[in-house]
């Protein structure tokens, strides 16, 4: 469920690769038009519009079914068919976007703000405090993230926001570790020493050099984290710990569709494809972020 560590490293590696430049590297040109990137941006744009103004995209009510229209196959009037209560599946997916996307936003923001603050503090202060903080981060990392989110959900109770917080907390340790290592890397660089050497105070050097240079890659990772937050939130929704029914949250939609798996294939297939598309697009777009930011 949580695959960000490796993706993170990828983004950083590619970012570093760009900076380092090898012996034979030639200036990278604009390749053929980045079709994948354009498509991904489009998918994300549509998903965000669904979240902001769902009524523009469908005239059906996502919560109230129409009698006699139960379990319709996808056709012209119901693009993605209907569920057991006669509700239009497409409308439910459109109205569900807001739950999945805000959840992911809250989760990423929480992880980013808390984790990065911890990491920057650890990377800037003296050895002992740094060691203590990072030991704690190690402990957090040793608990499988789903276990951690489940523990937090038990603590806070079920619901969209709580699920988002639970997902956010699991990324705190990763953001902390990443931002600390970035701060430490930048602090070791010659230009930071040179800044001290030309009379910079600790605060001035931190503000002018350390923060801007270490946080770019952290921000690129935050973008990448978004996709995996969507995944994790849909997983919690599927397990039944997110928004309660009849909320059309995507994970929950798939869970509900399972009951009709042998008769109504569209109920599980369609929302799943939407989740995959959104996550793929988010990852693709954030990768290009990472490259530009570096």
């Amino acid at each position, binding site marked *: 469920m949580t695959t960000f560590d490796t993706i993170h490293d990828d983004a950083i590696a590619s970012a570093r690769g760009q900076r380092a430049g090898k012996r034979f590297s030639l200036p990278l040109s604009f390749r053929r038009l980045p079709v994948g990137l354009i498509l991904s941006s489009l998918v994300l744009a549509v998903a965000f519009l669904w979240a902001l103004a769902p009524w523009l995209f469908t005239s059906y009510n996502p919560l109230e079914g129409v009698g006699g229209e139960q379990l319709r196959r996808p056709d012209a009037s119901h693009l993605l068919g209907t569920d057991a209560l006669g509700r239009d599946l497409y409308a439910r997916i459109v109205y569900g976007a807001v739950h999945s996307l805000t959840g992911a936003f809250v989760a990423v923001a929480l992880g980013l703000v808390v984790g990065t603050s911890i990491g920057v503090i650890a990377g800037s202060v003296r050895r002992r405090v740094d060691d203590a903080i990072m030991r704690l981060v190690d*402990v957090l990392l040793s608990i499988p993230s789903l276990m951690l989110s489940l523990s937090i959900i038990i603590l806070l109770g079920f619901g969209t926001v709580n699920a988002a917080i639970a997902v956010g907390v699991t990324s705190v340790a990763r953001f902390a570790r990443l931002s600390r290592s970035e701060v430490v890397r930048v602090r070791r660089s010659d230009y930071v020493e040179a800044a001290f050497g030309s009379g910079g105070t600790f605060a001035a050097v931190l503000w002018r050099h350390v923060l801007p240079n270490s946080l770019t890659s952290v921000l690129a990772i935050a973008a990448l984290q978004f996709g995996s937050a969507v995944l994790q939130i*849909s997983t919690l929704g599927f397990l039944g710990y997110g928004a309660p029914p009849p909320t059309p949250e995507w994970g929950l939609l798939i869970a509900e569709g399972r009951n009709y798996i042998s008769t109504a294939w569209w109920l599980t*297939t369609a929302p799943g494809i939407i989740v995959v598309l959104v996550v793929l697009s988010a990852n*693709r777009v954030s990768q290009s972020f990472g490259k530009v930011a570096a």
Partner: protein
Amino acid sequence: MSGYLLNRLGQALFVLWAAFTISFVLLQAMPGDAILIKFQNPELGLTPQQIAEIRASYAADSAVWVQYIQTINRFLTGDFGYSVQAGVPVGTILAAHLPATLKLASLGFLLAATFAVVIAFVASLTPFAWLRGAIQSVPSLFISIPTFWIGIMLIQIFSFRLKLVPVINPGPWQELILPVITLAIPISAPLAQVLVRNIDDVLTRPFVAVARAKGATRHWVLWRHVAKNALLPTLTIAGVLFGELIAGAVVTETVFGLNGIGGLTGRAVGSQDAAVLQAIVVFSALAFVVINLIVDLLFPVLDPRLRTKAGATA
């Protein structure tokens, strides 16, 4: 060497203790409590007084730190407490559910490792750039699919459409086919990504050019020089992978209705069974710590650079 070992062991014990403490604190802070949930049920018709007596018998009313010390002591002696909901010791429950999960997780991991190695090495051996690009993008697709959905789709396609795998009364191994694939797909993705990146990275190192200059073929270089150098660093993500394996197992068992630790976790969360959940958290932290310890000890064996610290003098 023994200093290194002791140091690692100390760190492992610390992580374990801290994970225990964190889970204890978290679950203590829980608003609802298991005893109340179970016995307040009006059907049981218990008076508040009776509930209080039951609570006392579980030591639920003593000071938090007393409970903390007691719980540590119990855990150390292998007693993981008593599940109020199920009415049996947590240890017994865990023992009953562990085998299914172990089987699923180890098979899933083996399949994932196979996927990853095949993806990475086929990608670097293929002479066509487009095919290489296509193979290398497989992991990023795998990483974007929700595990539970993979399971549902597999059931839909292989059980209901193609009727290849029976849903009702499958054999003990047949029952595992789809869950293992479901688990292997998301686990293989990070592994493959790291491998692909490492192979690309190692291929640019000067010693590869030197080996080629000796007259070695591409295959020779890939197997005798690149493989070990690329595989070694993947060990470092063993801990992360383990976390994913646990998460994947929870979801997979839920989807396929398997009776393992994953299913147990789901039920424990649903019924707010703190004792069971704490035991699971501590157990998975223990497994994580042991895996990382093994990796730490394995590294010096596999990587000669970590065996001897002192370099030679000119």
